[in-house]
């Protein structure tokens, strides 16, 4: 029996080791690619700016679609910020997805909207809107009310109403920097291939000072959980996604802030209503549809347009969020499994799809099982103590290297933490994040995978406190010199 267990643990350890080597090799490659591309892009973005796009008639119009479900605390602030964005031609469509709170009423009262009748043309199947509201004096704003049908359905309604060739999905609880839309559009304007997706960075605003729907002073949050998430977000957005983008294999763009080509999305059938992460699914759908039709296209990810979001403050909320993300990732990779290792789909099919399927989606199960079984394998003497200690040390130090590299990247970009204190905290958490937080997240993700296989495919609602509720006292405006250097 003991021999059987020893063999079992040997096999498990071997699988964990292979997983570790493969993921480490890919992450190291992505790290070097990102260090190269992100720093160079930051130099260009910082010095050259995007001023000439802001007043060019050639810059395509954009529709900002804000799906809102029970967002009465944040919606007015978000819609106001969208109207204030620095962009030549834009319209803002807020889709109230059957909120049970006062989301629509807040909008109507604040913007003095009036109920109107509109001709609704359906390009993508979606629930019909019930009511339209607008204020003739704010021609760029439209509020649509419909029955609850989920975020995907709300986005599809927004697409049906949108008048621009591009639309940007924005979460109702997010804050977008004033120039972010322009920065997101820059790769589209500069590309001579049809750019169907342009994604930007999402950063955590917890701890930062907000004023009038803008982040005035960037600072680290107070709690360990939020700090770990800051490091994690920086790592994901500053070297994971730019790395894949450089390889021409973008697979994830956050729906909190993503620019999409309307025609391409309509051709792909719009956002799927049977997935919990419609943004990941949409990218895979677009890859699949455009490759199958033999179209030339491009997806880009840029590191200087920033969208600020609120991270979960407690483990319960974080668990819900991560389970949902993992479930969504599983749904996407399983639905589009024919792309995996299919050379027809280029770098996406040969590199990022297999990586996301086997390492990102299923890998967390191996990681979780490995983490659970390591002590047992030690107990059954399947693994010598020194080996166990060295493996753990290597895993932690390697994780720290990756996080440290992303902090280095964050400091090279436009939006860095200006205070040394925050920098020290950030550096400390590149280590602490690997001791506990990472393991917790792995278990939540593994739960998400289990949910997929047990057929529990429901959306777990993550309730944020809202920026307005948590806004700290408005800090003074940063001095012009600091602002220029930030």
């Amino acid at each position: 029996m003991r021999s059987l267990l020893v063999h079992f643990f040997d096999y498990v350890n071997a699988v964990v080791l292979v997983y570790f080597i493969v993921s480490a090799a890919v992450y190291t490659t992505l790290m070097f690619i990102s260090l190269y591309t992100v720093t160079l892009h930051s130099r260009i973005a910082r010095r050259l700016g995007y001023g000439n796009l802001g007043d060019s008639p050639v810059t395509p119009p954009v529709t900002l679609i804000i799906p809102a479900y029970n967002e009465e605390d944040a919606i007015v602030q978000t819609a106001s910020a969208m109207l204030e964005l620095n962009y030549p031609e834009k319209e803002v469509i807020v889709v109230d997805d059957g909120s049970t709170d006062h989301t629509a009423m807040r909008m109507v009262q604040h913007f003095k909207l009036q109920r109107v009748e509109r001709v609704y043309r359906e390009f993508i199947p979606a629930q019909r809107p019930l009511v339209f509201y607008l204020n003739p004096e704010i021609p760029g704003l439209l509020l649509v009310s419909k029955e609850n049908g989920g975020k995907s359905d709300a986005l599809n309604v927004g697409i049906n109403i949108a008048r621009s060739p591009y639309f940007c999905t924005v979460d109702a609880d997010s804050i977008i920097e004033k120039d972010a839309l322009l920065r997101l559009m820059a790769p589209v304007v500069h590309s001579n291939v049809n750019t169907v997706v342009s994604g930007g960075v999402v950063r955590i605003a917890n701890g930062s000072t907000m004023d009038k729907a803008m982040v005035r002073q960037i600072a680290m949050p107070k709690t360990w959980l939020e700090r770990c998430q800051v490091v994690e977000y920086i790592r994901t957005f500053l070297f994971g996604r730019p790395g894949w983008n450089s390889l021409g294999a973008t697979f994830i763009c956050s729906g909190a802030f993503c620019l999409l080509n309307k025609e391409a999305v309509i051709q792909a059938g719009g956002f799927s209503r049977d997935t919990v992460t419609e943004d990941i699914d949409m990218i895979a759908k677009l890859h699949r549809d455009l490759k199958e039709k033999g179209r030339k296209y491009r997806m880009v990810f840029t590191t200087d347009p920033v969208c600020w979001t609120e991270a979960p403050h407690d483990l319960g909320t974080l668990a819900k969020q991560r389970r949902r993300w993992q479930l969504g990732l599983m749904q996407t990779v399983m639905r589009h499994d024919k792309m995996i290792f299919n050379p027809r789909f280029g770098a996406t099919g040969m590199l990022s799809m297999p990586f996301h399927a086997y390492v990102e989606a299923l890998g967390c199960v191996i990681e979780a099982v490995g983490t659970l079984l390591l002590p047992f394998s030690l107990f059954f003497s399947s693994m010598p103590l020194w080996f166990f200690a060295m493996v753990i040390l290597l895993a932690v130090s390697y994780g720290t290297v990756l996080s440290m590299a992303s902090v280095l990247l964050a400091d090279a970009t436009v939006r860095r933490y200006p205070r040394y204190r925050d920098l020290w905290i950030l550096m400390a958490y590149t280590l602490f994040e690997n001791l506990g937080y990472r393991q917790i997240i792995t278990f939540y993700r593994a739960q998400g995978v289990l949910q997929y296989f047990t057929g529990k495919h429901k959306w777990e609602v993550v309730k944020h406190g809202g920026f307005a509720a948590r806004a700290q006292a408005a800090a003074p405006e940063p001095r012009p010199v600091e602002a220029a250097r930030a």
Partner: protein
Amino acid sequence: MFPIEFVAAFLGWMIALTLVVAASFQVILLWRRSVRARYFQRKDGAMARLAQPVERFLSGAADLASTMRLLGPLRDEAERDAVAEMAGRAHHPEAIARRSRLLWRTGHVHRWAEAAFGRQADAIVQAAFAQVGTQIPRVFANARMNVLRRRRIFAVPRALALHELGRLAPAHASVFLAHALRDPSVYVRRRAVECMGENAYPESVPYLLEELRRAVEEGNDVSLRTIKSALVRFRIVDMEPFLPFFRHPTQRMRFFVIDTLREICHRAAKGGLLGGSAFSAAMRQVVLEDCARDEFADVRARAAGVIRHFQDAAAMRALHTLLQDENEYVRLHSVRACAHIFYKPLIPELLQRVTDVRWRVREAAVKGLLDLAPQGQEQLYHFFATSRDKYACEQTAEELESRGLIRNLVADLAQGRAVVLHLAVCRKLLDMGFTSMLITELSRIARPELQISFTEALQLAPPEEVMAVLREVAEPHPEGEHAGALQLLYRGPQPELAEARTV
């Protein structure tokens, strides 16, 4: 399998390596911060020290020799950047010319040119500062090491240097920019194109048109949108080099050229009055004779946007023809072009387009007619009140709501203006179910007797919202004229309103 000692040693080395890498990242981060902090400290000091002589020179209060004496030798990068930044704040053309001379003398121009052009820098700087006001010299290419030069790591410093050179006085900058168009890297060429647009120096137009031609015919990694963004910043008088391209054999080229001209006209019209006199006779002729009759529909469509600004009988005839075009996009652009007071005689043709089979054309026609107020608006109201075309009426009703014109309609009714026509429009809106805004506006009228009389006049089969409004009117004062409010709702058709319904 590997011996255990080997595995142990390997793991040990890996751990050591990762720790060293993590530590070096940390050191780089802190070193970078401290270097930047020192740099900005020195730069701030230099700016405080050198601001006055630079500003005096830029404003013309001091000459170059004395300014150079006051500046002294610039010792390090922070001081050089401080001077460049302060000089870069000049916006007036004269100040920009002075800035160029200053930066040339301080050695900035040479430094940037060396970064951008390497060993060719001296020759190009000489050409730039000797060729002021003359033709831009022929550019020459350097094909050596192009594979490496194309790499982003080498191209970004060149693009940044070119960015600085592009901000010199346009006469000087255009020489550098023209040379940069032969750079192997897209980053550098894109920046050159953008700077050409920002400077809008007329002699750059042929270079941009050549880039456009390459983008259309041969493939150019500088995008069409980038080139077009640069071209639209020029003035109409700079567009003479466009003329041969209006008859270019490639239809896409013809399209991009006429579309660029349309954008330039649009931009010029925003800045003030733009009339036919702004265009040369040759330009007018080629647009009216060739572009408006081009076999490619997109060229005809964009030509309408240019013809709009000619504002003469020939333009009227051309637009009249284009409004009947078989292609929907031509009709769409022509309808938009007619939304100008000069083209009021084309209102009947615009009304025809309100019933177009394509909704975009219908929408543009409705908008155009409303822009041509009061005549166009009045004609549209007449049409709306009498038409049985469901789609045209929906489009009109939607636009009346979106523009908030229902408020004006109700206000006019309240003041007794154009009562018959406006009542007919309101009646039609109600018949079509476009009730929300109308009811809101009716409920806002301060005088209840007016609300009652409107309700009576409109002969509502009232939806619940109207009932609610009327109840609200009646309930506070159950006696007198208010008492009749609800009763009025259920009256039968009034013979005197037949006129309103048959406008």
